[in-house]
């Protein structure tokens, strides 16, 4: 039995056909169409952020043009590209670690802890086992993923069982992990006679495979690209990806609909932690082939990755692009200081401005989509 449609009686109003567009309004329609392209708003935000940054540089009595060209040169000069790509891979990895929980509306602020635990696991395998490369490296990477994944996963039951938001538990657990790793490096696993807490240099068999003659980018880059592709596939085409999005939109709806929220959150947090752990593994299996206390955290990959993921709205297709943006700012920031004498801190300023301006883009979004903001 069907619910009958209302017959077109005299009182009914036919849905109105869109009025024919005048040339002017067609032009403006085209313009709206262009403005609505998903790439436009982020690009506009970046441009705006760059202008704000320029204003700051100018106000400080420095030359914005030379500052920016130094940023670009520092990141994109041919001889620096190798390095830039290796950093991009790491930021991409941490962005992925942030993007997975973001799909279910959660923030992972504990990337630091997960990354160092991954680094620790990889360092332990690489330093203790005497295996050929072909076994040792995968084993180290997998161990990193497992240990960091297990650590990341702790936040899921804390949230689903005890109602402690993931953003808080990851934030609080991270320093604990960092302290544990630091302690182990200092007292148990550290190299004797070394001035800082660090492991011994790993044997050659534990050196991540190089990509041709490149000196920074190695198989880690490929690994991250594969993980990104996997994330994209799972997010857009799989039942689990769909369920994650449903959780993000309305958790009660998800559990009513039979989504095993606890399990999925567990899986997502484990995957998120695991990716962060793999990033840690890639770092320690690359030069200088050791785990150095504090060295994984000082470049701030976690927050750069988080920012990139937020900027992309967690959407897998955009993550590589936004990660590239933060890579350029970060790597180029060094170049800027080297050659343009603009303080390195400007790079943080710019990253902050980009994030803020992009967050404010929702104004544009919500004006466009009416009452409901879709992502």
């Amino acid at each position, binding site marked *: 039995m069907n619910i009958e449609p209302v017959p077109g009686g005299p009182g009914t109003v036919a849905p109105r056909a869109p009025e024919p567009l005048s040339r002017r309004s067609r032009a403006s329609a085209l313009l709206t169409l262009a403005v609505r392209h998903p790439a436009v708003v982020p690009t506009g935000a970046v441009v705006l952020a760059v202008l704000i940054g320029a204003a*700051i540089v100018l106000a*400080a*009595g*420095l030359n914005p043009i030379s500052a920016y060209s130094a940023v670009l040169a520092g990141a994109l000069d041919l001889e620096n590209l190798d390095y830039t790509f290796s950093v991009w891979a790491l930021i991409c990895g941490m962005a992925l670690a942030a993007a997975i929980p973001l799909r279910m509306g959660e*923030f992972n602020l504990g990337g630091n802890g997960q990354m160092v635990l991954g680094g620790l696991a990889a360092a332990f395998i690489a330093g203790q086992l005497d295996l050929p490369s072909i076994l040792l490296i995968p084993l180290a990477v997998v161990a990193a993923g497992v240990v960091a994944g297990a650590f990341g996963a702790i936040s899921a039951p*804390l949230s689903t*069982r*005890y*109602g*402690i*938001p993931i*953003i*808080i*538990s990851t*934030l*609080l*657990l*991270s*320093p*604990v992990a*960092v*302290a*544990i790793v*630091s*302690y182990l490096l*200092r*007292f148990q696993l550290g190299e004797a006679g070394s001035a800082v807490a660090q492991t011994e240099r790993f044997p050659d068999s534990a050196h991540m495979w190089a990509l041709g003659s490149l000196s920074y980018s190695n198989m880690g880059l490929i690994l991250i690209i594969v993980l990104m592709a996997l994330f994209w596939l799972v997010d857009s085409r799989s039942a689990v990806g769909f369920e994650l999005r449903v959780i993000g939109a309305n958790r009660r709806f998800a559990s009513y609909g039979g989504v095993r929220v606890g399990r999925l959150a567990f899986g997502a947090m484990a995957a998120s932690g695991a990716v962060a752990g793999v990033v840690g593994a890639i770092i320690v299996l690359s030069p200088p082939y050791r785990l150095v206390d504090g060295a994984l955290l000082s470049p701030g990959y976690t*927050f750069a990755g*988080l*920012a990139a993921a*937020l900027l992309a709205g967690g959407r897998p297709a955009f993550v590589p692009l936004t990660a590239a943006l933060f890579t350029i700012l970060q790597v180029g920031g060094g170049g800027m200081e080297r050659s343009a004498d603009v*303080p*390195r*801190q*400007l*790079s*943080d*300023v*710019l*990253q*902050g*401005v*980009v*994030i*803020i301006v*992009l*967050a*404010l*883009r*929702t*104004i544009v979004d*919500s004006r466009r989509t009416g009452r409901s*903001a879709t992502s």
Partner: protein
Amino acid sequence: MNVFEWGFVAAVLLAATPILYSSLAGALSSQVGVFNIALEGQMLWGAFAAVAGSFYTGSAWAGVLIAVVTTALFSVTLAVGSARWGADPIVIAIGTNLFALGITGFLMRVLFDVSGTFSPRGLQGLDKMSFLAEIPVLGPVFAGQTALVPLAFVFIVVIGLWLKLTPSGLRLRGVGEHPEAASSLGIKVASYQMWVTIAGGALCGIAGAQLSLGNVTVFTENMTAGRGWIAVAAVMLVMGRPLWLPVACLGFGAAEALGFRLQGIGAPQQLTDAAPYAITIAVLVGMRMWVTARNRRPSLSAQPVPLPSQPESTS
């Protein structure tokens, strides 16, 4: 080492005060439904502005004032962005924190031509209340502190009472609990959220000023060093009841001070680093376990809707 002595209490208070101010800002924001994790960045800016202000004016209290005003301005982006324009406060806050870290370091180099630490000769710090020195208990606890330390508690009590007793406090609580309900009664929800967030900025300004002109007299890059995040955790811990903030913040202060003291008997530095965070998460879990356990079981006082008196209700 004797753990409980007045000096210990003073140390705990000192460590807790900046966190107290900033967590008060966070708690107020959460009362109006804005999750404010920009406390770290705002406090850092406040610390910088206070030192810069004191440096230029030669007066520490002018520094505090400048910190309060500029940090309030600093928080306008978050306030307007999240309340008026509906942007995600978490994202803005993450941007704000990064921006604050960058801009303070940048300005230190551009304005003062130093990197890392700025502590020019003659930089005025806030006066200690040394006139209290002779008074028992108060003396050892407060004589070495600035007036901002006891003021924090005054703030908490006043704000707590204000929330409870005044029309605007009532409205403010309603805005956070059910924004649509408030706006359907003509309350300008966005305005409340905006002004409360800006007021929170001012409180973070005090927090930063206490840190850079009260706890010490210097500004350093990344001087807040995670204290703003601890404040966020404190807000979580009290679950929207500002009057409990002192307990949470003093708890953190005590965890830190205790950690330092334990170093004295050989505990590793890493334990000190981890202790406040580990204790917080443990307390959170404990609290939630207790709450869930309580809800699961019918308590003795738990009564279902009372059954009616039987037949006479038929008419």
